[in-house]
């Protein structure tokens, strides 16, 4: 159970930003990466999503993710979120962590210079975990060609009280790709893809890597539906690989 809580805490740490626009990419909506832009000044955004993690040698885990963000200043937002999960293996639901986030997009794309941003997340366990999980993420977004965008996210994770045989600090990175779909005839959906690697939480463990494909679709002036699929390409031998991870979510701003 503690392992599940820790995993949930780490999964939640690293959250989102941006307004409910299908072109503005938020972490976990539906893939892990995000772009370097905050949500609009004075706006709120409420995001909800369901994720199903399947395992070859285990029963699935269901995650519900909910987060509310506020653009408290130009190019800056804060957020609070939680991500309870239910393991069909143990038949138990846990609250995991409450996450507090700060995001700043300090440079937009100008000429050939990329957009740059960063976020800091603090995850505080609410159902049995110990210590505080911290994540610092650097984000770069750059247009290549005309409409294609590359997003690079680099993460540093730190646990104030790591469990025995797990790392106190680990690193990860995701390279994301996005492109509006349907131009020049429709303007309401964006295709996303990602490839990510992160260090295993196990002390001395190998890298974990995954790929994902997703879509964000504008449903209304303020609402965006997202859905994604991910699969683990390689994983440390002490961790279970997920052959299929499905995500569906909905975001609305107000």
């Amino acid at each position: 159970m503690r392992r599940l809580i820790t995993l949930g805490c780490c999964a939640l740490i690293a959250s989102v930003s941006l307004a409910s626009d299908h072109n503005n990419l938020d972490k976990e909506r539906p893939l892990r990466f995000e772009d370097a832009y905050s949500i609009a000044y004075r706006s709120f955004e409420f995001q909800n999503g369901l994720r199903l993690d399947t395992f070859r040698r285990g029963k699935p885990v269901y995650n519900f993710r909910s987060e509310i963000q506020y653009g408290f200043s130009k190019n800056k937002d804060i957020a609070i979120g939680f991500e309870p999960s239910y393991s069909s293996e143990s038949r138990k639901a846990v609250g995991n962590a409450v996450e507090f986030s700060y995001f700043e997009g300090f440079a937009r794309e100008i000429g050939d210079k990329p957009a740059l941003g960063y976020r800091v997340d603090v995850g505080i366990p609410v159902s049995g975990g110990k210590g505080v999980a911290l994540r610092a993420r650097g984000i770069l977004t750059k247009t290549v060609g005309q409409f294609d965008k590359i997003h690079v996210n680099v993460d540093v994770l730190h646990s104030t009280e790591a469990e025995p045989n797990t790392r106190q600090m680990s690193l990860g990175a995701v390279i994301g790709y996005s492109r509006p779909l349907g131009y020049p005839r429709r303007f309401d959906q964006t295709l996303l893809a990602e490839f990510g690697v992160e260090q295993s939480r196990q002390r001395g463990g190998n890298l974990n890597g995954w790929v994902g494909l997703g879509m964000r679709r504008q449903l209304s002036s303020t609402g965006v539906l997202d859905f994604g699929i991910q699969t683990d390409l390689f994983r440390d031998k002490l961790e279970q690989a997920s052959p299929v991870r499905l995500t569906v979510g909905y975001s609305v701003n107000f």
Partner: protein
Amino acid sequence: MRQFFAVTVAFALLPNAWAQMPGVEMKEGMKSRMPTMPSELPRWMNSRGLDEIFYKRGPYNWAIDRIPAFAKDMYATGVGHAMAYEALVTGQANQLESKVFSKIDWVLQHPPSMPVDEAAISPRFVQKYGYLEKVFDWAHTLHFQTIDVFSHPGMTDAEKEVEIDRLWKFYQSEPYAITGLPMNMEYLDSFPYSMTFRTNYPKVNGLFWGYHWLQTVNYDMLYRVPVKDHVPQYEVLGEQYRTSELYKTDRDFMPMTAEMSPRFAKRFPYIANAFDNLHMLHDNVNDILAYPGLTEIQKEHQIKIAIYRVLETTHAGQKAGEGEPMTLHDHRHPPSIPGMGMMKGSEDDVMFMSGMGWMDMSECAHCSIALPEEGPWGATVSANGWTMMVRCMMCARDMAAETPGRAIIRAATEDENRLLVMISDEEGNWTSNIKDVVFLEVFGQHPECSSWSRAFTSQAAFEKFVQANPELKEIKPLSLEAWSKLNYGTPETYRKIDRPNPYRSGGGATPPSDGGSK
């Protein structure tokens, strides 16, 4: 760990060029005429942040969707702007009038049902001119929110007017706000690059001015008009927009808010001015981007200067109605139109209106008698793309009858809270939004026409008026059907102002391809 760093470094090695732009160098012969950089530009123009701002919260937001066809057409204007700008900065200018025009036109004829992110459609343009996008975005937000307020069914007309003023203050609170002072349009269109775009790309320029027609004509459709009457009016205006206004290449000048929505412009002159100044900024930007005599850096500088010219902050302390002619601070306006800056050739209230000729805006467009300054304002007639103010119902009807196609009359009644909206079909058959409407009409001398040609919301209201005016006691009310059949033609008092078109040298038929100081 090594494995991790290898992958991370590979990610970071993206195509990148951090080269600095070359310095500014004006070409010989341009220095004295091309606008020069002010001593200090607002600092936000060099901000690296995206600085996106959310709209003002209110129950009315997105009420534009209650008029679906209008909302879609408005959303499509964003696509049209963005596609053209993107083409101009990505080396596709030579395809603007062909391939790009066709692409835009397809979208205009198949408009999106939701708002679009213009920045996503024109990423290269926004990377280059992000500061300009901030000005455009913020003004477009004002456009949409004012429309939303008027389209919202949950507020009275008085509440809407209060909220519109709040929106204006909200808009002004950001440094990207465009001034609400009238500006001299001839001056703003008098630079060496002016009119390049409309000359070289008349079809796409026609689209731009078509968008501006739509973005300004809608306000009189909405202002103090019952929400239920918005959709029927837009059936007329939308058809006019999609079949005609978008494809006009013979306009002399961009549509002005006070021309298209005179009632709205009279009530909210500062907003009308801001929209006109915004649209003029669009024209300036189009011209700068299309002007072959400027380097890329010079274009960036000229666009910053063009923005500076129209910003609220640039005109702090200035007053409407004052200013030195043909200067940056020329804030004079025609006396009867505080919501419009001076136009080319205009003198007091006499101005040239594209498609209509010379008009005295203080007079009824049909009988040339002065419009009353107080009380019920008579009516407006919208037909064939123009909107005119008239003194009385007779002038409204007979003026509409002179124009082919459908028409809309918006008229005052005895109840200042009930606006009469009448729409005619191609044959001149009128429908009314007030079921029991009756008319008073006793043909007499035009100078008094606003007293003997009026509309009433009911027979009771008519009788009350007649009782108060004993000289009319023998007069019977006219039903809509009976009133529609009357027609007194062009009044004897009508005075045509016969002067040459100031936009066309020699009075030729071709649209202006040069002007101002060129």
